[in-house]
């Protein structure tokens, strides 16, 4: 208990890699104890900004949550540490599993499967969860990419279609339990939950900052409440918080994330290498 405690607030989907690989590894090498707090990136950002929560390191997906913390003056500098991409995740127990498997092998169009009548698609709330916003943007880009102008509307319905939107834990557990057939989400999350996926082309998977201007910037949607969704590369950024209790350990932890050793662990857990610049 005398060991210094490093607290890492991280985007909830990173639980496995943080709590089972990086955290324990860091704890042993630095004779510190590690405490990871995994919740939605925006929830964490708001709580940190309001000083309702205290942590040393914040790891978030997409730049927006990090900007919330930056505006609160808690972060000066955030570095990219990993990235992921949008994929179609499906439930192996779904009655459409065979169709999805075929699509994964390239024998069918994934968007045709998603359009099958009776298929239950899940996604998270685009208003509060970047993953949900990105699901819509992916569909929008796909519509353009595959020349299927009605695709977004056909697959997702309304932008905040009540029958598709679930809270993040609900979405993943329903997929696992076979309560919904498919979702559009992060490859890393699917990897943690051992769910089969269908890879999407780079043009629509939001993984490549290089394609930001050329492709991703073409996607934008306006939610009924006026909020505008724009595509942001799916990069995980990490930063030491200015009110950290253990700033040194925090820096070391970010170094670990960036190190070759850390990158190996991230890759093993289904993450892609970081892209793009620091914030």
């Amino acid at each position, binding site marked *: 208990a005398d060991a210094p405690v490093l607290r890492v607030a991280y985007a909830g989907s990173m639980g496995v890699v943080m709590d089972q690989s990086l955290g324990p590894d860091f704890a042993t090498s630095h004779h510190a104890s590690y405490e990871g707090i995994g919740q939605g990136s925006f929830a964490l950002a*708001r709580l940190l900004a309001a000083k309702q929560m205290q942590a040393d390191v914040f790891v978030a997906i997409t730049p927006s949550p990090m900007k919330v913390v930056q505006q609160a003056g808690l972060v000066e500098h955030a570095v990219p540490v990993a990235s992921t991409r949008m994929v179609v995740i499906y439930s192996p127990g779904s009655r459409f599993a065979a169709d999805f498997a075929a699509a994964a092998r390239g024998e069918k169009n994934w968007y045709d499967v998603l359009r099958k009548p009776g298929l239950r698609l899940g996604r998270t709330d685009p208003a509060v969860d970047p993953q949900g916003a990105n699901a819509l943007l992916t569909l929008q880009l796909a519509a353009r990419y595959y020349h299927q102008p009605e695709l977004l509307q056909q697959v997702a319905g309304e932008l905040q279609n*009540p*029958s598709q939107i679930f*809270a993040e*834990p609900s979405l993943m557990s329903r997929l696992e*339990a076979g*309560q919904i057939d498919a979702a559009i989400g992060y490859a890393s999350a699917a990897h943690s939950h051992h769910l089969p996926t269908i890879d999407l082309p780079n043009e629509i998977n939001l993984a490549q900052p290089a394609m930001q201007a050329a492709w991703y910037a073409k996607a934008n949607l306006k939610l009924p409440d006026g909020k505008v969704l724009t595509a942001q590369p799916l990069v995980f950024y990490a930063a030491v918080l200015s009110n950290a209790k253990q700033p040194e350990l925090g820096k070391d932890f970010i170094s670990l994330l960036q190190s070759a050793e850390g990158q190996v662990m991230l890759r093993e857990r289904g993450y892609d290498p970081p892209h793009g610049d620091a914030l």
Partner: protein
Amino acid sequence: MTTGVTATQRPRLPALAAALALLLLATPFAGLLLVTDWRHFAFARGDGGAVAISLGYSLVALIPIVALGTPLAWWLARHRSRRQWLVDALLLLALLTPPLAMGLLLAAMYGPYGPAGRLLERAGLLLTNSAPAFVLAQFYAALPYYVMAARTAFEGVPRELEQIALTLGYSPWRSFVHVSLPLARLGLAAAVALAWVRALGEFGAVLIVAYYPQGIPVKLWVNLQNIGLDAVYPLLWVFFLVALPLPLALGIAVRRRLP
């Protein structure tokens, strides 16, 4: 009736403890007073809808809770059988299950591919992200509390009075309505108040089972992520404002009518 005399001799320590308990209870709400930004008090889009949904569906949920919970509480209070501990355990299980886990279990049973959900869906009742799903989660969140409290209330009714009502020609049912219910009314009012606040305040199970329609607890969570704490506190105030009158009035009404 306070016996004036004893009041002066009341031991200090318990009074202090009670005062401390009150103080501690009040602290978070004093905090809320402080942290609310009264000058920029404003509501987020959809807050009004959340209030309506929470109040409306909680009232709806109270109906099956009271209708099914009361007979069960009565039965538990009046019958002692060998296997009663099983029912006790079931009640406690339901009380114990963390809301999140309850939500997962409800999704597993009543979800579209769940054993109960499939049947109900064929009957046209979709128990995911729908009004019935919302009520279902509230029902499960509040029922065990209601049953526990109502059972204690019924256990306090002297059996002799119920029997006297029978000897006066009342059927067990009328005796229940005219004797047991009024005599248990203090505890039953508390039970209804408890069910009401549980149903209204339920977050975990509702989050899993019915992200939509969005009641106040889920809306608080959405506001937090979407806008930040400034959008949480105003909604919380409104929540208190609209949720309190019913149980408060219930308690006052029932206590006033005490002979």
